[in-house]
C-alpha cells in the first residue's frame, strides 16, 4: 500500500499570452506551486471559482499537459517515469461533458471496451463479459450497449464514461466537474453512484468542482484554490464551519440557498483576500 495515492509536489504551469507582435507576452501562472497529498481511499474536493486553474491542474495530473515545474506522483511513483499505459491502469478521468467525452461514431459497447483492447486484456469473449459486468455495476441497461451515444441521455452517458474509466480497475479517479453538465435530479444519481462505487471498489477520488453543495455532500477533505494557488485546505468540518481564509469564507457565503429570507448573495469585493494570499 503506497503512503499516498496521489501527491503533487510544487506543481506549476505557466502560460505566455501573446499581446501582438511588438509587445511583451504576459505571464499567466495558471497553476502556481501547488502541493497536495491524497491518501488511498480518501476523497479530496478541490474547489475554486471558474478560471482558477482547477482544470489545468487536472490536465497535468492526467498527463495531458506537461507541468512547467514540479511533479505528479501516482501511488508514490513519478508520473513521467512510467509509461502512459501503466499510468492508465492506476488513474482514470471522468470528464465534465458527457456529450463530448464519448466518440459519437462508436457503439456504447465499443466505447467501454476500448480500454481493454488498448491494454490487450483478455480475448474478445472475456472482454465482452467484462463490459457487461461493468455496465451492470454502473447501472447501465444491457440493451443500451448496441446503441450510439447520440441515443442516450446525459445521465446514461455519464454512466458510460464511468464504466469506461473503471473497466481497467484503476485505484484513483480524477473527476473534473462530473455533474455540472447534468440535470439536478440526475446529478444526485451520479453522485450516489460514485459514492457506492467508492465503497465497493475502494477508490480514491480527486473531486474537482465549483459546486460547494456537491463537495460538502461527499468529500473527506477540501482544498480551496484561488488564482492558481492553494489558499486553504483542511477537513470538511474545518473548511465548511471554521474557514480561516477570507476567500474561502467569501466562497462559502456565495452559495445560493433555498431560503428566501437570505436573498441573493452579495457581489464580493476581492481586495480583502487578494492581500491575504
Amino acid at each position, binding site marked *: 500500500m503506497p503512503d499516498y495515492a496521489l501527491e503533487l509536489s510544487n506543481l506549476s504551469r505557466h502560460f505566455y499570452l501573446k499581446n501582438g507582435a511588438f509587445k511583451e507576452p504576459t505571464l499567466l501562472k495558471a497553476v502556481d506551486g501547488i502541493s497536495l497529498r491524497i491518501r488511498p481511499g480518501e476523497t479530496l474536493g478541490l474547489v475554486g471559482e471558474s478560471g482558477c486553474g482547477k482544470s489545468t491542474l487536472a490536465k497535468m495530473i492526467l498527463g*495531458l499537459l506537461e507541468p512547467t515545474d514540479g511533479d505528479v506522483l501516482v501511488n508514490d511513483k513519478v508520473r513521467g517515469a512510467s509509461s502512459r499505459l501503466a499510468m492508465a491502469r492506476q488513474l482514470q*478521468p471522468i*470528464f465534465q*461533458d458527457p456529450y463530448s467525452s464519448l466518440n459519437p461514431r462508436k457503439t456504447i459497447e465499443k466505447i467501454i471496451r476500448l480500454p481493454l483492447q488498448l491494454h490487450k486484456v483478455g480475448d474478445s469473449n472475456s472482454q465482452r463479459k467484462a463490459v457487461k459486468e461493468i455496465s451492470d455495476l454502473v447501472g447501465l441497461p444491457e440493451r443500451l450497449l448496441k446503441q450510439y451515444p447520440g441515443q442516450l441521455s446525459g445521465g446514461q452517458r455519464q454512466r458510460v464514461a464511468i464504466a469506461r474509466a473503471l473497466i481497467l480497475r484503476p485505484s484513483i479517479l480524477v473527476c473534473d466537474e462530473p455533474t455540472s453538465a447534468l440535470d439536478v435530479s440526475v446529478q444526485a444519481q451520479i453522485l450516489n453512484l460514485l459514492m457506492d462505487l467508492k465503497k465497493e471498489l475502494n477508490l480514491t477520488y480527486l473531486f474537482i468542482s465549483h459546486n460547494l453543495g456537491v463537495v460538502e455532500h461527499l468529500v473527506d477533505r477540501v482544498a480551496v484554490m484561488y488564482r492558481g494557488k492553494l489558499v486553504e485546505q483542511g477537513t470538511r468540518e474545518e473548511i465548511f464551519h471554521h474557514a480561516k481564509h477570507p476567500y474561502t469564507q467569501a466562497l462559502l457565503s456565495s452559495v445560493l440557498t433555498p431560503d428566501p429570507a437570505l436573498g441573493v448573495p452579495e457581489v464580493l469585493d476581492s481586495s480583502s483576500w487578494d492581500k491575504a494570499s
Partner: protein
Amino acid sequence: MSNLTLTANSSITSLPAVPEWRRIMNRFLGHRGLMIGSVILAVIILAALFAPWLAPHDPYVQNVSQRMIPPIWHDKGTWNHILGTDKLGRDYLSRLLYGARISLTIGISAAVISGLIGTTLGVLAGYFGGRVDAVISYIITTRLALPVVLVALAMASLVGGSLQTVIVLLGLLLWDRFAVVARSTTQQLRDAEFIASAKVLGASTPYILIRELLPNILSALIVVMTLEMAHAILLEAALSFLGIGVQPPSPSWGLMVAEGKSYMFFQPWVIAIPGVALMVLVLAINLVGDGLRDMNAPEGRS
C-alpha cells in the same frame, strides 16, 4: 397519491429504437436530388462496367464506308448504329460506353489520390497545430495560388499526355479542398474529451487519428470527394479536348468533342452526344454530393 406513485415508479421505456440503416434509408428516399443523382450515377457506372457486353460494336474498329452516319432520331439513322458513327466510321454508342470507363476511372482515381494527400496534410495540421500547422497552411496557400488548368497543361505537355499522366497530375493538384476541410474539422474535434480520454487510456497518436478522429470527419470528406470527382472529370475532358490528355484512339469524351469540332455546324450531334454525357455525369455526381451533404447536416438528426 396512488396515481402519482404509479407514474413515478413505472419505468419510462424508450420507443423501440429504429435501426440505424432504416433511418438512413428513409432520409435517402426522402431526398429527391440524391435519389435522381444516384440513379443516374448507378446507370452510368453499370454501363461502364458492362461496356464489353453492352456495346454493339468494337469502339476502335474503323469503317470508312460507314462514316458520319447520324443517330437514330435522324431520317438517315439506322438501328445498326443507334448513336451514329464518327468521321472514321467508329460506332458512337460503343465509344460513349467505353468513354464512361475513362471518365469514371480518372474521376475516382484522381479523387482518391488527392483525398489521401489532402486528408493526411489537413488532419496533421489540424491536430498538431503550431509549427506543423504553419508549414502545412503555407503549402496549402501555395497550392491555392497555382492555376490548376495552367499547371496541368504545362506538365502534361512536358511529360506527354496519357491516362496515367492525367490521373497523377490531377491527383497531385486537386487535394487543396480536402486539406482545408480536414484541417478545420480536425481543429474542432482535437480538444473533444473523447480524444483526451483516448490519450489518457494510453492510445498512440496514429490510433487516435485513424480510429477516433477520422470516422468523425469522414462524412465531410466524402462530400468533398464527390465534388472533386466531378472537377477531375471536367478537367480530364478539357485536357483531352486540348490534345494533351488521354490520347487517341482512346474513346475519351473530351477527345470525342475535340474530334467532332470541325463538324459541329452541319452534324451538331457529333459534339452534342459526348457533351450531354459529360454534363449528365457531372450533374449526377454533384446531386449525389449535395444530397450526402444534406444527409449529414445536423438538422433533423437526433
